[in-house]
């Protein structure tokens, strides 16, 4: 079973991963966007780590809703509301349970991902974070490692796609051939979960 301490470690691991990969995320974003994805997530998850140190929520749901709210308040751009909604909605779905199973997390995360799809009006194949998150949620039913691998594969599979959402969509066909920065950071989030729980 997964408890609040593990969810906190997940968020810290994500903050560390974003720190490590900020340059790469920004590089990917400069090819088809506006070159701020790395620095934006770095700012947001640093703030998440800071608020979790201070408030120490007692439940997995509490950790994620607090983290989501913090992202909405600090990131801005599209990734603030989208990542914020993903974590907040997933956290709400987990409710007040002191600990949750992998299957329960997979189901809650599915609801969170659905909320992201609704908010952004995007679907699979639009070259967005959903292309990593949707296969990851499905694979999370089997194992954490499978979720990580599915997210990584989903992020890689965005390379040949033409973007239909966000700023990259303005490039039309010129967005083909570049990996989507949002799918890449989403794979980092799933990878961080596998790192602490796998």
């Amino acid at each position: 079973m997964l408890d609040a301490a593990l969810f906190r470690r997940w968020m810290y691991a994500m903050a560390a991963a974003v720190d490590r990969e900020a340059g790469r995320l920004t590089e990917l974003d400069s090819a088809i966007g506006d070159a701020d994805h790395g620095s934006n997530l770095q700012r947001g998850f640093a703030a998440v780590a800071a608020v979790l140190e201070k408030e120490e929520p007692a439940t997995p749901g509490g950790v994620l809703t607090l983290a989501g709210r913090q992202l909405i308040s600090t990131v801005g751009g599209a990734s603030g509301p989208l990542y914020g909604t993903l974590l907040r909605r997933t956290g709400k779905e987990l409710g007040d349970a002191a600990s949750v199973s992998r299957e329960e997390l997979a189901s809650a995360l599915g609801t969170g991902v659905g909320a992201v799809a609704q908010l952004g009006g995007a679907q699979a194949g639009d070259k967005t974070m959903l292309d990593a998150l949707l296969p990851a949620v499905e694979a999370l039913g089997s194992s954490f490692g499978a979720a990580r691998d599915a997210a990584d594969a989903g992020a890689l599979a965005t390379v040949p796609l033409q973007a239909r959402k966000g700023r990259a969509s303005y490039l039309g066909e010129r967005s083909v051939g570049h990996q989507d920065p949002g799918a890449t950071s989403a794979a980092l989030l799933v990878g961080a979960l596998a790192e602490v729980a796998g």
Partner: protein
Amino acid sequence: MRMLINVPETVVADALRGMAAAHPELNVDVENRVLVRRDAPVSGKVGLVSGGGSGHEPLHGSFVGRGMLDAACPGEVFTSPVPDQMVRAAAAVDSGAGVLFVVKNYTGDVLNFDMAAELLEEEDIRIAKVLVNDDVAVTDSLYTAGRRGTGATLFVEKIAGAAAEEGTPLERVAEIAKRVNDHSRSFGVALSACTTPAKGSPTFDLPSGQLELGVGIHGEPGRERRAMMTSREIADFSVDAILDDRRPTGPVLVLVNGMGSTPLLELYGFNAEVQRVLAQRGVVVARTLVGNYVTSLDMAGCSVTLCQIDEELLRLWDAPVKTAALRWGC
């Protein structure tokens, strides 16, 4: 990298401190990143709030003042502000007459303003929104995030600002703002990429001797790259791109806008070509504004915006305005 900054992390806050020092008529909350006209809330007046990523100065902060915006929320460079800033700004300017959000059509701006509007409705502050989406370079809106908001933002903020200053009610100010947007079209060209402080190098690679047609205002590449063109050729291409999309049936406002590092010498020369091609196409120009208004950091290049006006819109355009960057009639 040659930039007049300390570190990328403090660029926005440093600029706000500088604005506060230069403009005592503004109330600048550096920590929460909100600029408000000092006499807000003005009794009985609809509040006009806009915001977006920093790096487009003078948009939006320098358009706060009498006859234009009541408050602005600057985000990080090229990143929309967060809902907390918009909530704070709306609360500071609402006199009970409601608040109009002027939102440029970018996914981040739209999502954050939507979240702010939801929060404010819970506090019983009446909110209306106008979406600015004037950029004709984005043609296939079914498969994109929709047309970007660019130069028309200035027209919307000025004209709706004048209407609000006259005491016009919220629904009517929103309708006027929407009319200005519907009647506006823009097209932009980049002669160089811009450099964001966080990245420290140009956001895309544009070899000398080439230009990008149909760029936005965030250092994102455009739709097409070509060999460098003359000012005359760029004016023909840009104006025709606009007229192909919407041919005005009456006089227009013209904005010839610099992207940040194109000198006025070049912009006025370009304006001469824009006026020539408009005359050739039979478009009557009512007013023209030339300068750096909706910029993209240090990008070289320009954009053209046309807005077809009627009697009411022209009167509101000519109404007094007193802001850091736009000022006439008072």
